[in-house]
C-alpha cells in the first residue's frame, strides 16, 4: 500500500519531485502508522475511552440496567459520605494499603539483601520466593488461606501453642485484616526480584569506600543502599500501592462474596462489585469507580511530584 503511493508520487511533476515525493512519503507513513495502530485504537476507543466517558455520565445518574438512566446530579457522590458501608470499605482498603504495602516491601527488600550474594543456590531461592506472586491472587490460594485460618485450623492450632485464645481468624472481624495482610506479604517475591535486580547495579566500590571511612552496616544501608535503590523503590512502591487498592478475588472467596464478617473484608472493589452487579445500582458503582480513579491519579501525581526529592538517578548530580 505504501509502495504504490510512493510510486505515484514519484511520477508526477518532475521539477518539485523531491519535496512532493517527501510529502507523499510522509502521507504513506501516516497511513501505515494508523493502519498498524487500528486494533489498539479500536480497543482504546471502544473498551477504554468510551466506557470511561460512559461511566462518568452514569456516575451522575440512577441506573439499574433495566430502565433508562435518570439524572440525579451529585447525589451519588454525596451519598458516599453518609453510606456507612462505603465508609467501611474506604477504611478497610486504606488500612490494607497503608499497612500491607510497607510490610510487603520491607520483607521484599530484606530478603533481596539477604539473597544478594554470590552464594550457591541463590537462583533457586529466588525462583522459590517468587512463586507465590504468580499464584497468590488465584482462587485456589484463597481457598487454602481460608482453610488454614478457620476455627481449629492450622493457624489457630499454632496460635494456641503460643497462648492465643482459641478461635480462627476468618470469623473474627479483628483478625481478618492481619490475615489478608499476611496473604499479600506472602507474595513479596515480585518486588523482591525487582529489588534484587536493583541491588546488583550498586557498584561495590561505594561500599568499599564507605568501609574505609569506617561506616557501619546501618550507615552503609542508609547512605548507599537506600539512595542507590530509590528508583526501584519508587517503582515498587507506586505499583504495589496501586495494585493493593484493587484487591478483589481473595477477599471475595474468603468472605463468600459478602465482605464479612462485620464488613471487615469489605474492600473497595468488592463493595463496588456488590453495588453494581448484585444490587444493580450501576450509577452509584460508576461513581465509586471514578472516585477510585481520582484517588489513584492523585496518589500517582503525589508520588511523581515528591519523587524529585528522594529518588536519585545515577549520573544525576544533586
Amino acid at each position, binding site marked *: 500500500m505504501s509502495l504504490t503511493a510512493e510510486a505515484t508520487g514519484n511520477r508526477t511533476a518532475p521539477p518539485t519531485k523531491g519535496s512532493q515525493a517527501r510529502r507523499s512519503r510522509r502521507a504513506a507513513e501516516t497511513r501505515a502508522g494508523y493502519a498498524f495502530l487500528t486494533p489498539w485504537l479500536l480497543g482504546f476507543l471502544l473498551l477504554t475511552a468510551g466506557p470511561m466517558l460512559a461511566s462518568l455520565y452514569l456516575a451522575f445518574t440512577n441506573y439499574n440496567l433495566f430502565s433508562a438512566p435518570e439524572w440525579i446530579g451529585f447525589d451519588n457522590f454525596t451519598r458516599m459520605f453518609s453510606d456507612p458501608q462505603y465508609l467501611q470499605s474506604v477504611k478497610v482498603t486504606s488500612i490494607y494499603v497503608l499497612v500491607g504495602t510497607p510490610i510487603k516491601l520491607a520483607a521484599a527488600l530484606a530478603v533481596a539483601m539477604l539473597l544478594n550474594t554470590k552464594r550457591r543456590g541463590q537462583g533457586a531461592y529466588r*525462583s522459590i*520466593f517468587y512463586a507465590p506472586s504468580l499464584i497468590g491472587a488465584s482462587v485456589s490460594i484463597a481457598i487454602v488461606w481460608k482453610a488454614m485460618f478457620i476455627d481449629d485450623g492450622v493457624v489457630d492450632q499454632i496460635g494456641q501453642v503460643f497462648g492465643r485464645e482459641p478461635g480462627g481468624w476468618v470469623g473474627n472481624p479483628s483478625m481478618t485484616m492481619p490475615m489478608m495482610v499476611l496473604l499479600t506479604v506472602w507474595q513479596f517475591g*515480585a518486588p523482591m526480584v525487582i529489588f534484587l535486580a536493583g541491588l546488583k547495579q550498586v557498584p561495590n566500590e561505594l561500599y568499599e569506600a564507605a568501609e574505609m571511612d569506617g561506616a557501619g552496616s546501618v550507615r552503609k544501608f542508609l547512605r548507599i543502599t537506600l539512595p542507590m535503590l530509590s528508583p526501584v523503590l519508587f517503582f515498587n512502591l507506586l505499583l504495589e500501592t496501586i*495494585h493493593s487498592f484493587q484487591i478483589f478475588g481473595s477477599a471475595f472467596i474468603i468472605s463468600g462474596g459478602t465482605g464479612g464478617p462485620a464488613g471487615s473484608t469489605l474492600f473497595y472493589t468488592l463493595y463496588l462489585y456488590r453495588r*453494581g452487579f448484585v444490587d444493580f445500582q450501576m450509577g452509584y458503582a460508576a461513581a465509586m469507580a471514578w472516585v477510585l480513579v481520582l484517588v489513584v491519579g492523585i496518589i500517582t501525581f503525589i508520588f511523581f511530584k515528591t519523587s524529585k526529592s528522594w529518588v536519585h538517578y545515577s549520573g544525576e548530580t544533586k
Partner: protein
Amino acid sequence: MTSVLQKHVATPDDRPDDLDRSAELRREARKKSLVKATIFHVLVLAVAAVILYPALWMLMSSLKPSNEIVGNISLIPENASFANFTKALGGIGGVSFWTFFGNSLFLAVMSVIGVILSATITAYAFARIEFPGRKVWFSLMIATLLLPFHVVIIPQYIMFNELGLVNTFVPLLIGKFLAAEAFFVFLMVQFMRNLPRELDEAARIDGAGHVRIFRSIMLPLMKPPVMTASIFAFIWSWNDFFGPLLYLKKPDLFSLPVALRIYVDQTTTSDYGAQMAMAVLALVPVLLFFIIFQRFIVEGVSTQGLKG
C-alpha cells in the same frame, strides 16, 4: 594474596611467626566465611519453609480424608488416597471438571494468540513508524497502564449485555485482540526500540513496505518479549476471576476459578478434601509453566517489572 604468601614461603630467611600468623588468619577467615554461609543458608531455608508451607499443605491436604485436614499441621498424610481427586473430577451439577478445564485452556490459549498478534502490531506502529499523533497516543497508552479497570467494567458490561454477548467468551477475549492490556504493548515497544534501525532501512531500500518489514524482519527478532508476554498472558488469563465472574453464568461455560468458587459455596464446609483437590488441579498448569519457564519468568520480572 596467595601468590604473596607463596613468595614468602620460598624465601628461607622469613620470620616463622609471621608465616604462622598469616596461616592462622587464613584459617580464621575460612572459618568465618563458613559460619557466614551457614547462617545464610539457615536463614534462607527458614524463609523458604514459611513460603512453601501453604502450598505444600494444600498439596498434601488434597491427599487426606476431609476430617484429617482442618487443624492438621503435619504435611504427611496418614492415609493417602486419591479419593478427593476422583470426587473433584466429577465436577459440579453434572458438568465435568474437564469442561471447566477446557474452557480455561481455550481462554488462555486464545488470550496468548490475541495478545501476541495485537501487541506486536501496535508496538511496531509506536516504535517504527513516524506519524502525526504518535506521541499523544503513546502517552494515552501509558496512562492506561495505571488506570484501575473498574472504571470501564460497568459500561463494558452494559454494552456486552446489549449485544447479547454475556455468557460468551467474547467479552473476555476481545480486549486481548485489541491490545487493551498496555503492559504487553509497552514490553514490545521497549524491545523493538533497541533493535538496530539499519535493519528496516536496508529493507526499505530493497523496496519492502511496513507489512514486509514487520513480518519478515521484526517478528523473527521478537522472540524474547513474545515468549515473556505469552507466559504472562497465559497465567493471567488462567488465574483471572473478575472477568469470568461477570460474564460467565452458565455452568458449562465456567472457567476453573469460577467453577472453584461455586464448588466451595456448594460443598459443605466439611468437604475440604475435594476443595483442596480441585484447588490443586486448578494450579497445575500454572505450576508447570513456572517450573518449565522459571528463568524466563523471573528474568522478565526483574528486567520489565512485570507483576505476578
